[in-house]
């Protein structure tokens, strides 16, 4: 087990700067999810930690030692790849034994490690099979087994669930998290799926263009996003953003109406403000009982939830999500109600969150 510290990490591909300068602290036993849109550098960062990509400058410390120049093996990490990367010509047992054999471990040690890992992951009946004789979920489990037998101080996961179907993905999500709770090994997990990030992480690190936009506990990021990017990236459906002009404590949304209460940024605060509201914080009301009026455009019902997309007079869309089945139909006039305390405010110019 080990903590991982990245300071001033920089990565270039030729002349293109992928990661300008990145600092990140990951505590011992923590489950950290790196999340961001494709091309944000999250996989590159993981591969740099793994030792598969050289680091141009900065320090990468694992368990207090600088490991920039160590080989992947010497870093004592284990990695689970997106496509599992199981050796197709080896059985499950041989796949798991590969690293131990290379390390010249004796048979009893190898059997012991494999026995323990296959017991944890329920792989015992599959040990003599080849990867192609396994289902997607089983392969995923073998890939984790191969990581566990090495007894690593850090687990690295590179989008491990993206090749699985939706149902299996939910199941494996739980399995990976409970595996972590059992083994308590520092884990760094890369995904582009914010639901995975929200449900699994102790700490989420939101990346964009090689920079950390915000890092923290999932619910902190969800309820107090540092900027517009994080606000819209986390949460599904994504946060509604309404550009407004502030006049004292009143927010003028132009032809859509006015909002008031909830926040007062005084005389010195910015005038151009973007008001954010999560779909789950909106309530549909009769049109005459709300300040904001809209027309229902689309109604999506999942059974547990009703997601309503409305059009404001300005043509802007607002999404509202309500539990259960709500009796509303496309074309109806509705009013949008929300608790002023649940609104988020951002400086439209810089995109940064404003403390209400």
């Amino acid at each position, binding site marked *: 087990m080990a903590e991982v510290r990245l300071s001033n990490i920089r990565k270039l591909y030729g002349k293109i700067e992928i990661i300008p300068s990145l600092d990140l602290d990951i505590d011992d036993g923590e489950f950290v999810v790196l999340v961001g849109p494709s091309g944000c550098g999250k996989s590159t960062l993981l591969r740099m930690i793994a030792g598969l990509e050289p680091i141009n400058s900065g320090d990468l410390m694992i368990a207090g030692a600088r490991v920039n120049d160590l080989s992947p093996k010497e870093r004592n990490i284990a990695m689970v*790849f997106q496509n599992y990367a199981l050796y197709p010509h080896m059985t499950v047992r041989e796949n798991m034994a590969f690293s131990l054999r*290379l390390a010249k471990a004796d048979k009893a040690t190898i059997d012991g490690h494999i026995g323990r890992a296959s017991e944890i992951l329920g792989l015992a009946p599959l040990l003599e099979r080849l990867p192609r004789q396994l289902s997607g979920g089983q392969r995923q489990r073998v890939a984790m087994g191969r990581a566990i037998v090495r007894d690593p101080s850090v687990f690295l996961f590179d989008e491990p669930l993206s090749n699985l179907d939706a149902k299996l993905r939910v199941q494996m999500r739980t399995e990976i998290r409970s595996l972590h709770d059992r083994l308590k090994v520092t884990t760094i997990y890369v995904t582009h799926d914010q639901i995975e990030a929200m449900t699994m992480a102790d700490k989420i690190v939101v990346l964009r263009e090689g920079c950390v936009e915000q890092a923290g506990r999932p619910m902190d990021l969800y309820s107090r996003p540092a900027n517009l990017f994080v606000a819209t990236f986390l949460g599904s459906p994504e946060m509604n953003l309404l550009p407004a002009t502030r006049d004292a404590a009143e927010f003028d949304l132009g032809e859509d109406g006015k909002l008031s209460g909830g926040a007062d940024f005084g005389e010195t605060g910015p005038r151009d403000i973007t008001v954010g509201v999560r779909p789950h914080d909106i309530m549909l009301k009769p049109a005459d009982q709300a300040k904001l009026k809209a027309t229902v455009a689309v109604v999506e019902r999942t059974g547990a939830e009703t997601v309503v997309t409305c059009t404001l007079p300005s043509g802007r869309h607002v999404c509202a999500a309500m539990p259960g089945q709500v009796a509303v139909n496309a074309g109806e006039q509705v009013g949008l109600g929300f608790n002023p305390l649940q609104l988020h405010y951002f400086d439209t110019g810089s995109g940064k969150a404003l403390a209400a």
Partner: protein
Amino acid sequence: MYSRPRLTTWLYLSPLHLLLLAVLTLPSFYVLWLSLNQSTYGTGLTWVGLDNYRTVFADGYFWRAALNTFFVVNGVVYVELVVALALAVLFVSGVPLRGLMFACILMPYAISEVVAVLVWKMMMDPSIGTISRTLELMGFGLLNWSASPTIGLTLVGVINVWMNLPFTFLMIYSGLLAIDTSLYEAAHIDGATRWQRFTRITLPLLVPTLLIALIFRLIFAFRMFSEVWLLTKGGPARMSEVLAVYLYEHGFRYGDFGIAAATGWMMVVGSLLLASVFLLAMQRSMRGA
């Protein structure tokens, strides 16, 4: 899902089958028929049963040619496999001026076989050839391949490898490209050295490709003719003949079609025997797949 082929299935396939029948099956049975008869230019066929085969078996030159073929084919095929594998690995790991290097490696395939052999012949000419003169100056002595069957056949082998390297190289190169790079990364993380990654990941996954390349090349090499014919004409004293040259001599110089046809069939059987080891191995690996 497997379903019994219908009449229409056979009809769709029939043009191909008719073509194969016309250019492959009928001629080979005609050659079989020829091998059981005695004939030459301008005469009809006279049934002799297995006499032609007996004659061929009793002919010391045939055994000499068979032995030469066996040694040259085996030498050529394995040397070529190793060289092509090394080159392909080098290319996959990255070479400077890749496009140019690629063109250099593929060039022999673009040159007419006869032209290539004649160019080699000139360059290896003991008195004026660039390569042979250079080798002599470097102290390797005079390589008189027209007088020594061993040196002659070695040169034949070298030319054959040079001419067919692009084929084996391309087969292995594409086989290497098909191996998922994440396997190497996983092995790297598992602690495998470069050499271990080659022996434990690359080689086992490349076996099917290597087998196919071997089978093709064994069969191609077995028919080797132009190199020997243009360089030594089988000389001195028929010592460097290979089976195809033996066949050609009997068929078109001595006009003994029966003997030539019998030799042809022996070559088919011989090359199948040589390739059968690898065919069996491939079938086994496919059954496991």
